[in-house]
């Protein structure tokens, strides 16, 4: 059985930035799914990554109103000069997992669109719709359907991109 690790990250007190944690909370009861909610991606997560067969990072990013969820394959990044602090991008964390444990799981970044990142709780309609869409994607994956096998009609705005830019984690 696949062990799927969903890492929802962001700051729930910065409005739509909390979309990742909301998604992680929503899918926590799915069979085969483990969830982690964090503000930032930290090196201490590498053990959890190494024990998963698939990891799904869920983040939020600024997008125009009405935008959909974006899905991107994450590749390990190991020669990254940006790794100067204690917080990592999904690619860096995957790279660190490779260095520490010698293996990495299949990894995806689900980006929920957001329009408001001001101090506050609750999601904008755009982010709330994105959360539902992201949960649907993860549910299908947990049900055994590969993310890459989603039909074009199903994935419209969440079409997988490979090697998306490894942007800094927004906590």
């Amino acid at each position, binding site marked *: 059985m696949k062990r799927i690790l969903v890492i929802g990250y962001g700051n729930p007190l910065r409005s739509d930035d909390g979309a990742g944690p909301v998604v992680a909370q929503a899918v926590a009861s799915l069979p085969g799914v483990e969830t982690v909610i*964090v503000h*930032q991606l930290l*090196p*201490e997560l590498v053990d959890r990554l190494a024990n998963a067969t698939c990891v799904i990072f869920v983040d939020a990013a600024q997008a125009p109103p009405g935008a959909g969820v974006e899905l991107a394959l994450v590749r390990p990044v190991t020669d990254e*000069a*940006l790794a100067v602090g204690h*917080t990592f991008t999904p690619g860096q964390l995957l*790279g660190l997992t490779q*260095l520490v444990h010698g293996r990495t799981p299949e990894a995806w970044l689900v980006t929920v669109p957001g329009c408001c990142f001001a101090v506050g709780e609750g999601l904008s309609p755009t982010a709330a719709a994105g959360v539902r869409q992201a949960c649907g994607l993860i549910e299908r994956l947990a049900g055994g359907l590969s993310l890459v096998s989603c039909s074009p009609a199903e994935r419209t705005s969440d079409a997988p991109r490979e090697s998306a830019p490894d942007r*800094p984690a927004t906590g």
Partner: protein
Amino acid sequence: MGQRIVIDPVTRIEGHAKITIYLDESDRVIDARFHVTEFRGFERFCEGRPLWEMAGITARVCGICPVSHVLASARAGDQILAVEPPPAAQKLRRFMNLGQIIQSHALSFFHLSSPDLFLGMDSDPARRNLFGLIAAEPELARGGIRLRQFGQEVIAFLGGKKIHPAWAVPGGVRHALAEADRETIRQRLPEAKATTLHALGRLKQLLDQNQEAIQAFGNFPSLFLGLVGSDGSWEHSDGRLRFVDSTGRIVVDGFDPARYADFIGEAVESSSYLKSPFYRPLGYPEGIYRVGPLARLNVCTHIGTPLADGELTEFRQRGGGTVNASFYYHYARLIEILACLEHIERMLDDPDLGSDLLRAQAGINRREGVGVSEAPRGTLFHHYQVDEHGLIRRANLLIATGQNNLAMNRTVAQIAKHYIRGRDIPEGLLNRVEAGIRAYDPCLSCSTHAVGAMPIHLRLVRPDGSVVAELRRPG
């Protein structure tokens, strides 16, 4: 005034800062300043909030050391309620603080400073990070990651989460330690100890090989401040405040935290948002003092656990009794991790950790309270004044990093004067100046925001403002 060199931003610290190095007309370093360029404003926006919210609010000061603020805030609350928390609550607060010191020190030593220490100050900056460390020192780096994870788990077991646990409250704490979690901690202790002892061994090799460099690395006389136990032992939670001088002579002992303003003044410099506390009887800036791991090991007589006491003896032999070189902050940090692990081990069998008698209830019985706790980076004070309803009228937070501000400035100036000659400055020399700051592990309240790319940008500027030379270290 001649030219100046600016290192902006300083990397691998918690927060945002820059360093300016001032040169005279002959390009010799005459001074250096550490500027903290971020502003938070917690003291002001806490005004009007209920006392009972303060632990939760002030935990948000920082994503690295929230526990320190939670504990200092809860203690200030104890004072205002005029209650003594139940014994179990006091022990649990201590237990969480031990976990906090472990995780924060592990972050500082293994993630932020080890790349300098074990890859070399002059090594390729593109590899001088955790990735490079894993390639060069895999056992050390992997162990460090797991050690920090261990400390965070101790916090999460009690507070429900690793960051910002609003767990300690005025009068006590909210939860005890579950039996299953106690067992998990017990099982992980041997590995955590082995990692720490391994790191201590590696660091001592480094000390042997770099004696000359260490002597120019923030080595100067100053006072030291920290908590000590009733028998003068190492203390991190309760206890009494002690100042010693650079020879170890006790200057002030056992002063009431409520009287901190009699002994500590707070100067403000226009070049930094960080306050510059000083020992008031000596005035500013002569009243320079240091807090944190180095200070705690200098103010105490002993630690009280076998392995850590053995290490403390060697630490003092190597450092010459009372240790004045700031490079030894790294060494002290590892000894403190060991002390925390031994203290945790000793406490694990205490049935009080599972007690449900955790909180003393009371109303507002005093209008003012000062809470003090040893944060990983040093002594932390929370001072509140409240109205009759318990609403905050005034809050003053005296943060450990601020208390090291004068010492950090002196450290960067000493390193710059020792290494920098003229305008041709290799990157590795700039890194030494930054490393002088990293030794103090300053926490500038990075909270939960990503640092992103943090390149070093150095400029040589003529007195008329024209740029003579420019150096960038790409992010």
